[in-house]
């Protein structure tokens, strides 16, 4: 037996309301940049993984050449995720500089250690250090 007109009208109302809610969330939040705790949006993993940097420590020679320093070898720790988080996964510039100072203490005195780093952002990689300063010189 086909549904009555009233039932059909009710269904249309519910479908419109629920469907509008489903579609309205992404349209409002992703299309118009709005923010609402009532609505659902599906920007999954959009902010995930931003606490990591690509870091390189470089020894600056008197002639200006830069040689990569293996931070694991200098600190005598394995190149593995089980290594201290501050060495394995550097989360930002401050952490990268702190690790650099730790390397300075382990390297021969007078080493000119430079940091080249870029950190993850939601907009891609952002360069945060370009090997300009000697980390082993106390400011």
């Amino acid at each position, binding site marked *: 037996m086909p549904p009555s007109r009233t039932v059909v009208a009710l*269904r249309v109302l519910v479908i419109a309301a629920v469907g509008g809610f489903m579609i309205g969330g992404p349209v409002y939040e992703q299309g118009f940049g709005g923010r609402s705790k009532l609505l659902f949006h599906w920007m*999954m993993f959009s902010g995930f993984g*931003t606490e*990591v940097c690509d870091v390189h420590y470089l020894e600056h020679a008197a002639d200006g050449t830069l040689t990569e320093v293996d931070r694991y070898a200098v600190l005598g720790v394995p190149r593995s995720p089980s290594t201290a988080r501050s060495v*394995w*996964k550097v989360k930002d510039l401050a952490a990268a500089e702190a690790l650099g100072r730790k390397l300075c203490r382990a390297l021969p005195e007078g080493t000119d250690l430079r940091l080249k780093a870029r950190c993850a952002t939601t907009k*891609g990689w952002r360069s945060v250090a370009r090997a300009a300063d000697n980390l082993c010189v106390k400011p």
Partner: protein
Amino acid sequence: MKRLAARLFHFLVLDEGSTRPAALVRLGLVPLLWSKWAGDFLQYLDPAPHVRVIGLSFYASTTLLFFGVWTRVAAAWAGLTMLAVYYWIGHVDGKEPYVHHHTGLLVIATALIALTPSGRSLSFDRWWALRRAHGRGGAAPEEWGPLWGQRLLALQVSVLYLATAYDKLTPAFLSGARLQHHFMYLYLGSNYPDGSWYAALCQVLAVATVALELALGVGLWIPRARPVLIPLGMLFHGILFVTLPVSTFSLTMWLLYLAFLDPAAVHRFVDQMVGGPRTQPQADR
């Protein structure tokens, strides 16, 4: 155009079919809900009074829903409970893990299952109805009902795919940079691999991800595309589960693919699986 609109209206509003796909979603949802929340509402954890009430409501409503006891009421009750979990405990109390995407999807799916006649199949309600019918010497009750609730479940899946693909249409994602971040954050640490292969691989994966999500968002509605897209989608979500912290999201998406399938085909498939006689979801009229 008018004919197309009429067909769309029939498909969304009037169409009817076997209730087994909705019943299978119902049966799959409850274990996912329990795997996510059941441990949080244990009474000896001394929750706040409203969390205690919501928790008891969670256990009672989802248990009834799973077994299909007073399913219509149980589904509405469970749906409201899950909305309370999400909005009250998640947003009002500020329990952030409760408002993640995978939890949001579970909440929406539970609320939507209340809009389906899922209790007409694979439930105690069905068993009792069969006993009553046999007692009267009548025909077995139909496993048949309106499909608009099921269509809404499918629409949610589609909206999710299209929204998440749209969100990724940025230079940061399409260049592969964001995937580089994900893999470094979870696996590689601050050790960017030597050579160009890593950047190339991440870019290929990024473009393929967006292409697949767009294809799934549209193509799952097209019957001919499903035999290709559903296995691809299942593989995609399987890989996501193993490689990223997506929690219940992958299995929920697998489950919700049922909403796209032809209910008659699902009905036949269940018959074949249990090895019994072939049944008709609806009596001949």
